[in-house]
């Protein structure tokens, strides 16, 4: 199904999304990848708060290229999500619900998604020039020293994604491939 949704990703909204849905996101997302996640989880472990309110937040696993003059952002496609698996359950435990990335997730992340009604959205890896066109605003909010890995707040409009894993743990990487292979046996 094709859906257009407005963020933040409330629990109610998350539960309407199904594995395989094409979902166009509009609203605020936060960027973070390896080093940013490490730093955020260390902050949480020390009892400190995060640089943004994680409640119902969606995190985009991306390290964009620098913006050319006159551009909002550079190329900005997803990075491999599996590297954030060590941190994702912690992020969900404090309220973050949506994740945008690409690639496989560990079972413990899927379990946390079921527990907290998380949704894992896939964006097309290697299509950073195209995806950047849906990013209308980009503000650096923390960890500037990390360069491409700094935390940024983005405003996106009709950002194209596909639900890879939904809040009940259904996984497009399993179902999509199985359906394709089954179609070849007919």
């Amino acid at each position: 199904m094709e859906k257009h949704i407005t963020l933040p990703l409330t629990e109610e909204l998350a539960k309407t999304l199904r594995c395989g849905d094409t979902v166009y996101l509009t609203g605020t997302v936060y960027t973070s990848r390896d080093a940013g996640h490490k730093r955020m989880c260390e902050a949480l472990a020390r009892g400190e708060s995060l640089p943004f309110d994680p409640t119902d937040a969606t995190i985009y696993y991306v390290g964009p290229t620098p913006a050319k003059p006159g551009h909002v952002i550079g190329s900005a496609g997803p990075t491999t999500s599996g590297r954030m698996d060590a941190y994702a359950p912690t992020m969900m435990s404090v309220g973050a619900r949506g994740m945008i990335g690409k690639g496989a997730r560990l079972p413990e992340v899927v379990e946390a998604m079921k527990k907290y009604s998380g949704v894992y959205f896939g964006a097309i890896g290697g299509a950073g020039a195209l995806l950047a066109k849906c990013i209308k605003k980009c503000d650096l909010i923390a960890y500037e020293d990390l360069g491409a890995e700094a935390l940024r707040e983005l405003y996106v409009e009709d950002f194209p994604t596909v639900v890879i894993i939904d809040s009940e743990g259904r996984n497009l990487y399993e179902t999509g491939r199985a359906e394709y292979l089954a179609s070849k046996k007919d």
Partner: protein
Amino acid sequence: MREIDASLITDAVCRLSIKANYELPADVKAAIKNCRAEEDWDTACGVLDRIIENFGIAEGESVPICQDTGMACVFLEIGQDVHITGAPLSEAVDEGVRHGYGSGYLRKSVVRDPVRRGNTGDNTPAMLYTEIVPGENIKVTVAPKGFGSENMSAVRMFKPSAGIEGIKSFILETVEAAGPNPCPPMVVGVGIGGTFDKAALLAKKALLRPLDVRNPDPYYADLEREMLARVNSLGIGPQGFGGKTTAIGLNIETMPTHIAGMPCAININCHVTRHCSEVI
């Protein structure tokens, strides 16, 4: 003896770093378009259309195809009748990377220490490979390598008794394990022979060969065709959402090896298989 000032190498590396990140090679673009024409799974067709649209935008607007503008893998084929003057060679190459990644608005993705991390801030150092060849020219190739795919690569030291079937299984196993992570459709570079390290270098060089050019040895040319077809029957498909197009190319490079061994390395690349060259 021809003298070449190192600044010419700096300039070439700078230009090539930018060009490689904005424009896919013609053979890669053609391979993606051919796969789109032959794809029959709806989701896969949609993904391939967006990938084609993306490289068109990048080239048309002079922006990076992908935000992972890679580690700068720089290959220099240096004629043995050349004397390089001026700056030390590796500094000249790094200076080119520094300028190219800065002025081209490319991402700085290199950390100075593998364990303790810390971004170097200018994408240096380059991964520099030099080869001395006959002649009085220098061929400079820049191949920015993204790590979503690099991370899914593998090396295995086979016993010779494993034979060709061992190699075939290893290729399929590696692609299967890579799954959706390296942004399929991928390009598979295979290196067989040499030593542990030479096999890996062969695999990386396999990614530089145009995708429509087969290995000159008919035995390996047939193996390339067979294994590309078998990889594409796995059903992983573009982005791992299912479909025929799991790989757009598979190149194999080989060299002699020891009587006791059969090293094999597989270097996975994504559909953004970037490289371009200049001759000085």
